[in-house]
């Protein structure tokens, strides 16, 4: 039986011997990202520049948003295997309807968030395995995307293109965006009272239910949030790539799960970390960035490097936790 998680413990000031290992564990995502950046700096000092970061972290924003979406679902002990094709579907809507008929596009996107919320309700009411429901939905989103855009094409709305290609002074846009995403998700989920209820619904549903909160509502809220961030991810992706393709988001399902876990999330028990998830997504995006090609890592091994990073971080975490326990 999972106990109510006490994630705030890690952030309390260190009173006496409040487990330093736990602090170490929550610092792990940041450490792994720092190590990657140091490695890149060592191999190619010129990459550490305004332009270099803009290029390396180009695709980090949509990945981070998809990871946050996945995090909401994982927080209530479910798993979303459809987020990748959903991002692709949103991308196709963004590049077609949102560009040609903005009002209709907005309605479709809001409707798709509604579908996500309805899935949450269905999963809760019928006590269904989310892995199978979202697996089926991944076919549905992919099919809709293909119907909408049989061939790669479409065009990003100008305002979206402009937003994603901002060139703010000093700090590259992807970094600012990543900070904003992390802070918004952190405050919403970790610092509000309803956020605590939402996390509790993953950690100890019975307790939350007995305290009078509707578990149906928490499930629906989490899935609706996942849908919302999925929509943002698809839109951000199209703002960067400028045109869409029905298969554009397929890789995001596995990347987003990996990002949540890299960021210190656990599969069960409502133990997740929004800041960690964003850091995990950045780590994966950097590890797979096209810049690695210039650092003598052949493209063949880019996916593999993601796997290796994941295993190394998990091994480090296992070491820390084992000693702690």
């Amino acid at each position, binding site marked *: 039986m999972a106990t109510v998680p006490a994630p705030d413990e890690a952030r309390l000031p260190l009173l006496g011997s409040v487990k330093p290992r736990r602090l170490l564990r929550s610092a792990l995502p940041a450490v792994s990202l720092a190590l990657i950046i140091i490695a890149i700096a060592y191999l190619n000092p010129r990459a550490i520049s305004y332009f270099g970061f803009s290029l390396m972290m180009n695709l980090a924003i949509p990945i981070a948003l998809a990871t946050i979406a996945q995090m909401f679902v994982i927080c209530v002990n479910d798993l979303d295997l459809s987020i990748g094709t959903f991002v692709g579907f949103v991308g196709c809507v963004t590049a077609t309807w949102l560009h040609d008929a903005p009002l209709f596009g907005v309605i479709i996107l809001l409707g798709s968030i509604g579908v996500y919320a309805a899935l949450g309700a269905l999963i809760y009411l019928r006590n269904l395995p989310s892995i199978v429901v979202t697996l089926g939905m991944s076919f549905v989103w*992919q099919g809709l995307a293909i119907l909408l855009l049989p061939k790669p094409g479409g065009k990003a709305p100008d305002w979206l293109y402009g937003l994603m290609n901002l060139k703010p002074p000093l700090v590259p846009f992807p970094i600012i965006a990543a900070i904003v995403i992390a802070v918004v998700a952190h405050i919403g989920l970790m610092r509000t009272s309803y956020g605590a209820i939402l996390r509790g619904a993953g950690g100890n549903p019975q307790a939350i239910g007995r305290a009078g909160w509707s578990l149906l509502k928490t499930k629906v809220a989490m899935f609706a949030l996942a849908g919302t961030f999925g929509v943002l991810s698809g839109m951000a992706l199209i703002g960067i790539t400028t045109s869409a393709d029905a298969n554009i988001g397929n890789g995001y399902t596995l990347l987003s799960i990996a990002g949540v876990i890299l960021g210190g999330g656990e*599969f069960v028990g409502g133990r997740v970390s929004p800041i960690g998830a964003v850091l995990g997504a950045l780590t994966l995006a950097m590890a797979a960035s096209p810049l690695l090609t210039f650092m003598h890592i052949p493209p063949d091994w880019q996916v593999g490097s993601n796997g290796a990073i994941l295993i190394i971080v998990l091994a480090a975490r296992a070491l820390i936790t084992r000693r702690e326990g």
Partner: protein
Amino acid sequence: MAGVIRLLAKPWLWSFVGAILVWLAAVAFTGGYGGGGMITAALSLAVFMVVVGVGQMFVITLGPGNVDLSLPANIGLASAVAMKVMDGSDAMIAVGLLAALASGTAIGLGNYFLIWALRIPPIIATLSASFIIQSVDISYGRGLQIKPPPGFADFTNILIPVAGVGIPLLAVLTVLFTIGVGVLLHRTLYGRSVLAIGQNIRAAWLAGIPVGRIRLITYVLCGALGGLNGALLAGYFRGANVDIGNEYLLASIAVVVIGGTSVAGGKANVPGIWGAALFLVLLLTMLNTFGVSAGVRLVVTGLVIVGVITAAGGQKTLR
């Protein structure tokens, strides 16, 4: 009467009923033309889903969180290994099959090593492993243009005429294989242990079941079946391919669940895998004969999976 009721309560029956209904719909649409051909094609393609489905079934039966996400990468790599080892020569078929099995077995061992050493949920272990296997496959199978040996390609395509309908030899062998799997699951210590672990891992451990060893065997079994499937696919489609296994991640989970195996673990169903695989393949065949586009086909497949699981309902877990 009681027998009929008991039969109707069998979840796997519905997947066969669904398969037959879908086939009838397709045959009605074509006016009776090509019904036999549809059966032949459905059996040929269902074989591959059944082989990986059996592996996935054992893994899923181990309990919540147990799922092998490395199957597609495993299948892709094994297809390349088999083709490279066979090198187009009939004499090397057996060696190539063994090499594919060895590749799958090694992946299964690797998966369990990650689960055991890092104490991480299997879903993440197999996910990380699949990233690495994918890279190995891309690098190893780059520009691989080796055709399967003619003897092997012919073998995977042999049809046995039964009442005017060609029954693939591979399907017959797979039926025998699944009968063996049924015995393994219900009549051996190993199979009963898998079910016990899925029902309650702590109780199983307290009862003295070697939980670690059983899980290891299960992941290795699933990996080996993935490897075998890779080799067979490469023979049937006449060549290896990095993406050859892609559709089998979703398909392997779908056939297991539609076939009546509990996602919560501890309850497995072997005949249901055949019914579900035939149902899914025939559903695609039917949509193809209706002439619908690829997009509609995907949407309908997805809605059917969601519909089936909703109708079947979730299991009340005790936890």
